[in-house]
């Protein structure tokens, strides 16, 4: 597997009236060709900021990358100028946004919005671009593309709009497709359709996908690997199997435990109390400790490093230290992880 993208110690801060907000505090991950990485976390955990940084779309001048490298095919895109980024955006890295209702230009025909990128990056003439746009609409499952091409976004339903946004993102066969909560704003049935589409794209193209979500249920469906973010850091990362059957971080337990499942009738949901910390003043030590039932005294003093669980699985919690008390996940979460493993096995 070849590394397509490597993020090293990325730190992003926002300057606000109330001082510096540290949205991303040292994130490391890598993305291989053709794989799907899901980044999971609550709102405010820094996952969207991370992807904006990947696209070079951080709002200026409020946001700034303090340290870190984002190596795309070996080149650091943090150092690239906006002009250079324009050549990468939409061509090598493209993005699908959360709210399809507002992410399309209301006064421009859908066809033109798809063709724009093609004309810019692939230097196509309008006829060729139009042909390609028709293909793309067909590919993302929009019926009557020849009619739809000449329509405006408001003539599309939410799900259809999201398909158009995906078509725009796919236009130039990007090497990386970033999907920022692409299903959150949609109805459940439509969500399933869009996820199905994403999986299809994953199968058919060789694009790597970064899938941002707060919904673990979605992750199990589409991802190869999962990174769990909390308070601007990745606190656990591993393959889908690692995370779903063998989660090590109490926060991941909480996420798994608060996921309603059909067979969860008798068991209680394992909820995470409290709310995420104020990132303008991040707590000392482990940011999750105040909400953590299993916190250790050391959590208030020192941040836990990434402990290796297996070759693919890492987690940042002192519980993994050899001298730490052995703590098992709560029963309900354990039962769940076993349940997931069972259903996975059935498939």
């Amino acid at each position, binding site marked *: 597997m070849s590394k397509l993208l490597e993020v090293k110690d990325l730190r992003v801060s926002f300057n606000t009236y109330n001082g510096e907000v540290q949205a991303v505090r040292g994130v490391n991950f890598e993305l291989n060709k053709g794989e799907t990485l899901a980044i999971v976390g609550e709102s405010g955990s820094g996952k969207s900021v991370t992807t904006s940084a990947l696209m070079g779309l951080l709002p200026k001048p409020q946001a700034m990358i303090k340290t870190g490298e984002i190596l795309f095919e070996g080149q650091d895109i943090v150092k690239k100028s906006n002009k250079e980024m324009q050549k990468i955006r939409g061509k090598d890295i493209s993005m699908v946004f959360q709210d399809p209702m507002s992410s399309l230009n209301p006064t421009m025909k859908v066809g033109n919005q798809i063709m724009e990128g093609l004309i810019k990056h692939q230097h196509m003439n309008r006829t060729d671009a139009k042909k390609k746009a028709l293909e793309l609409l067909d590919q993302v499952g929009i019926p009557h593309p020849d009619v739809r091409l000449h329509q405006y976004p408001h003539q599309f339903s939410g799900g259809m709009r999201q398909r158009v946004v995906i078509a725009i993102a796919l236009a130039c066969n990007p090497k990386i497709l970033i999907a920022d909560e692409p299903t959150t704003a949609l109805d459940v049935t439509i969500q399933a359709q869009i996820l199905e589409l994403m999986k299809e794209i994953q199968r058919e193209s060789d694009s790597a996908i970064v899938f941002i979500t707060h919904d673990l249920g979605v992750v199990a469906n589409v991802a190869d690997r999962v990174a769990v973010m909390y308070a601007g850091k990745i606190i656990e990362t591993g393959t889908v199997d690692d995370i779903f059957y063998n989660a090590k971080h109490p926060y991941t337990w909480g996420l798994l435990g608060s996921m309603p499942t059909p067979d969860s009738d008798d068991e209680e949901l394992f909820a995470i109390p409290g709310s995420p910390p104020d990132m303008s003043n991040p707590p000392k030590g482990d940011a999750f400790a*105040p909400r953590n039932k299993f916190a250790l005294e050391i959590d208030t003093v020192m941040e836990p*490093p*990434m402990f290796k669980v297996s070759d693919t699985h890492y987690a940042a919690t002192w519980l993994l230290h050899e001298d*730490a008390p052995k703590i098992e996940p709560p029963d309900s979460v354990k039962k769940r992880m076993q349940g997931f493993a069972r259903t996975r096995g059935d498939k």
Partner: protein
Amino acid sequence: MEMNNKNNIPKELLVPMKQREDTSEEISRPSRTFGQNARRTFFKNKLAVVSLIILVIIILMSAFGPSMNQYGLDDQDLSRAKMPARVPVLENISWLGLDGTLSDNFKGNTVEQATLKGVSRYDNAEEFIDIEVIDEGDGSRNSAEVKATYRIYEAKEMTDQYFWLGTDTLGRDQWTRIWLGTRVSLQIAFYAALISLIIGVAYGGIAGFYGGKVDDVMMRILEVLIGIPNLVIILLMMLVLNPGITSIVIALTITGWTGMARIVRGEVMKQKNQEYVLAARTLGRSNWKIIMKHLLPNISGIIIINTMFTIPDAIFFEAFLSFIGLGITPPEASLGALISTGFKSIMLYPYLLIFPAILISLIMIAFNLIGDGLRDAFDPKMHK
């Protein structure tokens, strides 16, 4: 990534944490009410604050300015007509133009001819006229030019008098008239804004709160009224009524409230369907309590902002009406009336126009900037 074997880890701390009070829900920032936030945002807006200060000064001057000298509103005295501005102390700074002299350039074929023109222009009071030759000329037509400066206060033996902003064509003190005029203009604007506010809020509030049939009928009426251009109504009313403060206020408010009514109705409609109002209803609050405790506070921002923009509108319309001769007419003074009279002698005595023009512009700018500031202050998005 692997740091499992770091040695400097205080291993004695690898024990379960004693349960502490959960601090994650603690409020880490001082909480501010919406009003405090709004005030803070407003006072951070320098333009708005400066405008507010200027406006307060102007209002104070319109109250006390006229009694700061001995002249009255309609003290006509032709012997002291058209006196230029003269202010103690400042009269010694020549470029300010407050030294109580009139001066202009005169052209003629020769210096003598030009001088003669200047002297005859200034009451033939030769001994009080300083002539400064600008161009000797060569005898051809209008080639010579002189600057004549007329020390009119000395000529009229009024060196002990100071008309701070000069006098008008009838010898009335311009300082007194300007501040009294400002007072009238501001009064008209405040009354018009206040009445529009009361009618508009009541009408829009009732239509919005009751909805249904009541709203339907009231909105149909409003739609027709809004269709009537306010200019037309104001002009018609001014023709029928006798000129004066009351007439202008009536003319301005007769259609002026419709904008407020529409905004208030929209806002009430929006607010009354909010969950918090439903909650109050479910708890058995009376309509009156809901209006006073919930709706009014929540729409007060938009009402205040709208009023702040009604005031400069009213000031403009008063000035406009007075300018075309339908508003306040001399000897009464208002900013519009003063500008109107000033305009008539714009060529010879520009100061008669310039002072009221500056004042009305300042007032309009100040109100607009304060309005902008308030709009930002009441916009939660602007509270950083």
